[in-house]
């Protein structure tokens, strides 16, 4: 399987275990890679998400695609810069990516070009702060500032 993938995809391909293949590609060939993988029986998008690598000032987009026939999960990764993060939609390849993309916009502030709902609220309502899953967003601080906790006077009786 790895051989076949290598034939069609340019990028770093690593066979981590018999059922996991990690593919690292440039961000401009992300959707074409997924398209090619779909042709190679990787028909199911299992998960589409991002990781905030705050030290590198980059987002890593991760798409997990699965092949029912070969029982292999391909982890397709690409890095995009953190300033004005944008990617192209993959909804045309995998329809269920739609909400994952909306989530990327909401949770990381990644704009998805071609997704009409991108950057619209999905899980949160009236959110005005930084996108919460970014590493530089401090949830503890936010929660302490916004939501009052109960401070119980200790009763010694």
């Amino acid at each position: 399987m790895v051989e076949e993938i290598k034939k069609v995809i340019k990028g770093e391909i690593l066979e981590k275990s018999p059922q996991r293949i990690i593919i690292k590609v440039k961000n401009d060939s992300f959707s074409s890679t997924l398209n090619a993988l779909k042709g190679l029986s990787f028909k199911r998008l299992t998960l589409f998400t991002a990781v905030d690598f705050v030290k590198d000032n980059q987002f890593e987009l991760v798409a997990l695609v699965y092949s029912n026939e070969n029982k292999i999960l391909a982890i397709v990764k690409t890095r995009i810069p953190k300033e004005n993060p944008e990617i192209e939609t993959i909804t045309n390849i995998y329809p269920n990516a739609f909400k994952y993309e909306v989530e990327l916009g909401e949770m990381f502030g990644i704009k998805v070009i071609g997704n009409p709902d991108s950057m619209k609220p999905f899980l949160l309502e009236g959110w005005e702060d930084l996108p919460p899953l970014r590493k530089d967003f401090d949830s503890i601080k936010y929660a302490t500032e916004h939501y009052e906790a109960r401070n119980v006077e200790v009763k010694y009786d």
Partner: protein
Amino acid sequence: MENKEYFEKTSYIGALTSTKYIFKKPVTVQYPKEKLNLPERYRGFHVNDLDKCIGCGNCMSICPCQAITMDDPKAFHLVNPKEGSTHLRPRIDYGRCSYCGLCVEVCPTGSLKMERNLIFTSQDGDAFVWFPAEERRTAENGFTQSNEITPLELEKVPMPELEPDVRKKTFEELILGFSEEAAIKEAERCLGCGICMQGCPAHMKIPEYIDAIFKKEYEISVKYMLEDNALPGICGRICTHKCQDDCVYNYRGDAVQIMWLKRFATDMVKDYKVSDPYMFPKTGKKVAVIGSGPSGLSAAYYLTLMGHSVTVFEKRSVPGGALGLGIPMYRLPVYEIDKEVGHLKDLGVEFKFNTEVGKDVLFEDLMRDYDAVYIGVGLSYGRAINLNGEDTPFIIQAIDFLRQVKVEGRRDIPKKVIVIGGGNVAMDVARTVVRLHEINYGGIDTKVQTVSLEDWDIMPASKEEIEGALEEGVIFNPGWGPKEAVFENGKLKGLIVKKVKSVFDEQRRFNPTFYEDQTLFLEGDYIIEAVGQTTNLSFIPEHLMQQLKFTPRRRIWVDEFGETSISGVFAGGDLVETSLGNAISAIANGHRAAIGIDFYLRNVKGGKND
């Protein structure tokens, strides 16, 4: 697809048969009349035995909900916050608790448990915070910890050491030290609760430096050590490790081997220079330190860091005081002292060896030439027990014996040796004698025995030392006191000992009584007395001596910063009351005195006294 057919055969009658339950007994548990049987592992509210609890705060650290706060349970009047325990106890906020039971899993004493009850309702939202004391218990125990499956590592990593047969033939260091892997494994065991810090006279930042070891950041680790302890490498070998006695692991398993970890970290750092915690600019003030024992070195180190110039005066030719002279090489090799002292030298501490104050240089001169004087001469003279024949060459003081062996290279020894004393020094002596016997006679027809007033259970020597000595073949006679030495033909024949009735009196003071009629004759041709040491302050001139205040136990009186009743003269180490007679408390004294001297020199009176 036979399954499918089965389900496709539908039936109204079949459905109606379900109504037969109208005649059957319901399955309802009629609360509050009936209740579910709650099992043994039920995770309900907490129950904490406040007396057993030591307030280590591990439950607080592990709590994923920040439900636990350590607080003083004034209501419950902790009668006796025992040693190795804080006065704090967990207070649990049931507006946070998620009943995961992780706090119970990590509780080192096992005082925290969960009870078989999870029913509490109230109109008042503030009523959900309480100390889970036994008094509040509403049901029997539910979830408790298990010793088989516990997230804690109860067993210590064994320390490799020389086999008794090998080690007694040589003065090589018998503890081999951890490998990096073992050290990290041992460091990983530490829970980071910091109970041990209270036990340590120097209050070293033990959790921090162990954590740094765990992260392989040895230089940072040593930095943490140097903040409170100028001689970490030495302490890592010979410390009495009170911290390990307080380690919370003692309740369920083996204590973390803090000392060996310290030793490992210092071994990994070749030059401490990278780890010096802070360095102030030079102040131009001069301080004289008398004695290069642990307290002197410690004071010298911190004074130097604070920017003062320090000169150390040492009577002997080697540095280290009791460390350099008294502790046998198999425990503390000379190169280790050299490393630590070398570190001080590199920092700019000036050492004057073979310079005895009062003889080579006068105390008054020091007072005049230096801005402050620190006395750290320690207890460098052996204490006699007034045994007959102490003036003969057959009876020797332990401190002299050890010095002779270590510094002067003495190797001759009679075949049958009696060591009087049950402390660590006695063990050192006995084990040194064993080595000399092996070297001289191959261990054939030799005998080392110790006599101590204290019985096994109260013997002051540390357990490891006693075990080591036993392994090496030392014979113990605990519970006997020396009566008289027997001489024959001008040669020592043996020692008559008498049975001890009690060591302490009712006030727990040292006051031994004996059964005069029960005696025992111990054969021996050499006696080493290791029953304690005393000091000699004759170098201090008479008029100053009169100003000097002493405590009832004949130690120099000092204030909390080590200043004696003479302004500008500080003292520390075993000379002062607060010392526990071990290196680490001497080091702590030295550090505190250094701070006092610094205050004194900077004229920060307020900082010192208030």
